[in-house]
């Protein structure tokens, strides 16, 4: 085999190895980002849902605090949706949308309860995802 052919094969192999390393680096980066930030954001989400639930004991008296809590929750959920993928990302994006709708409609208790439910469902999804990743390591 001529030396130039060997060189061509070697550069193709090198390119494939580079692509494989790049994809693996992306995977490592997203896993690192997940481990570093997602548990903290999940804890924040738990605090938001817990506060919202407590405020729903008397929604009329807590309307201004509810608005503040929803605004803070939207920031957390939007940040979360950028750091996860698949089904969990879909749920986080949908929750962010629900929070925005709830904010626009004011203190509709039924919508607030739907938002709370979507929050606690997302928390369970995050818990399952964390457990899955623990086994992958």
């Amino acid at each position, binding site marked *: 085999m001529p030396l130039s052919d060997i060189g061509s094969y070697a550069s193709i192999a090198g390119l494939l190895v580079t692509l494989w390393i790049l994809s693996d680096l992306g995977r490592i980066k997203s896993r690192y980002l997940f481990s570093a930030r997602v548990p903290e954001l999940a804890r924040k989400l*738990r605090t938001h*849902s*817990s506060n919202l*639930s*407590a405020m*729903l*004991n*008397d929604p009329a*008296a807590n309307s201004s605090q509810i608005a503040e809590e929803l605004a803070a929750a939207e920031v957390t959920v939007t940040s979360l949706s950028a750091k996860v993928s698949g*089904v969990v990302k879909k*749920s986080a994006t949908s929750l962010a949308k629900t929070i925005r709708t709830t904010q626009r409609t004011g203190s509709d208790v039924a919508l607030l*309860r739907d938002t*709370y*439910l979507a929050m*606690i*469902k997302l*928390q*369970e*999804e995050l*818990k*399952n995802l964390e457990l899955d990743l623990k086994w992958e390591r």
Partner: protein
Amino acid sequence: MPAESNQWVEAIARLTALTQEGALKWETRPPTGERTVVDASYYTTHKDRRLRLEKRMVTEEDEYSFRRQVRMERLFLEFVDDNDNSLWAFPRVDALEDLYNAVRFQTAGVKDFLDDLLSTG
């Protein structure tokens, strides 16, 4: 998320909503039996089913070491019979803590207290 797990989260959120709306009335009773209950036991009846909610001290394996055991507080929501025997316990989900807080808020009469206090000035 498995559909089954979703179902328990929805059921507990529904119980919390019914409690907060006053449609589900809980009563406090001193703990009975051998269980190590933190504060009181809370009982209610929903669609002819008796439910008991309690925070108990339990000993469990440490999450980080299988050889070590730790004492911790855990919430239990169970169906009970007329003699307070546990028939079945709901799976552990974070939403149980919110139900527990809503039940304590109701049984302590916090809303009535606040309404009364704020209306009298």
